[in-house]
């Protein structure tokens, strides 16, 4: 079965510390992976997708097919990074049909 797992419900770090939000997926084909973010009182929005290979707001994520992982990383966390982060998978080629992980709340303390 297709599944996305985010093992941490809450990740709390101090400002300036490195951040890694874990995401593992279960899918036998070639998935497309995304990270979506929801800041306080804002709607859910795309942060980045693996095929674009971009760094957005200092965040990067590399698709590791061997480990079936798509961890989100940032070398130096900022307070404005505090938000809920969702890892998501598209298996059908239709990027409107996503399988979401449980989400990780990132709390960056001053």
């Amino acid at each position, binding site marked *: 079965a297709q599944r996305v797992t985010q093992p941490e419900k809450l990740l709390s770090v101090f400002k300036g510390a490195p951040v890694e939000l874990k995401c593992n997926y279960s899918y036998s084909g070639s998935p497309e992976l995304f990270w979506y973010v929801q800041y306080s009182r804002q709607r859910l929005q*795309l942060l980045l997708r693996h095929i674009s290979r971009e760094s957005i707001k200092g965040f990067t994520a590399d698709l590791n097919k061997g480990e079936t992982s798509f961890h989100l990383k940032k070398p130096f966390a900022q307070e404005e990074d505090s938000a809920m982060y969702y890892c998501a998978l598209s298996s059908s080629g239709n990027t409107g*049909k996503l399988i*979401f*992980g449980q989400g990780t709340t990132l709390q960056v303390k001053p």
Partner: protein
Amino acid sequence: SAVISQKPSRDICQRGTSLTIQCQVDSQVTMMFWYRQQPGQSLTLIATANQGSEATYESGFVIDKFPISRPNLTFSTLTVSNLSPEDSSIYLCSVVGFGVNTGELFFGEGSRLTVL
């Protein structure tokens, strides 16, 4: 990008009644997607609404419980019927972007339903 408006933003309903959620998009789109987020849970796709044809439902969701209308390319409604407390969730409407935003899913602000 696509701008999506949902109404109502929140509602409290009695069990056994129904609630209809409206979703308006500022551009014409072929497909609209309805997601549910139960308390403390992740987002789950309910159905894909296509203009001019019946909605396509995901496993575990049925038309009798979640009837969907899609009268034109900018509007859709989701009805949650015969409400029970287990239907208390946030319901989200979404569309896929186009042009430079191709493949990006845009979300409405969500409709928070509480069933008493």
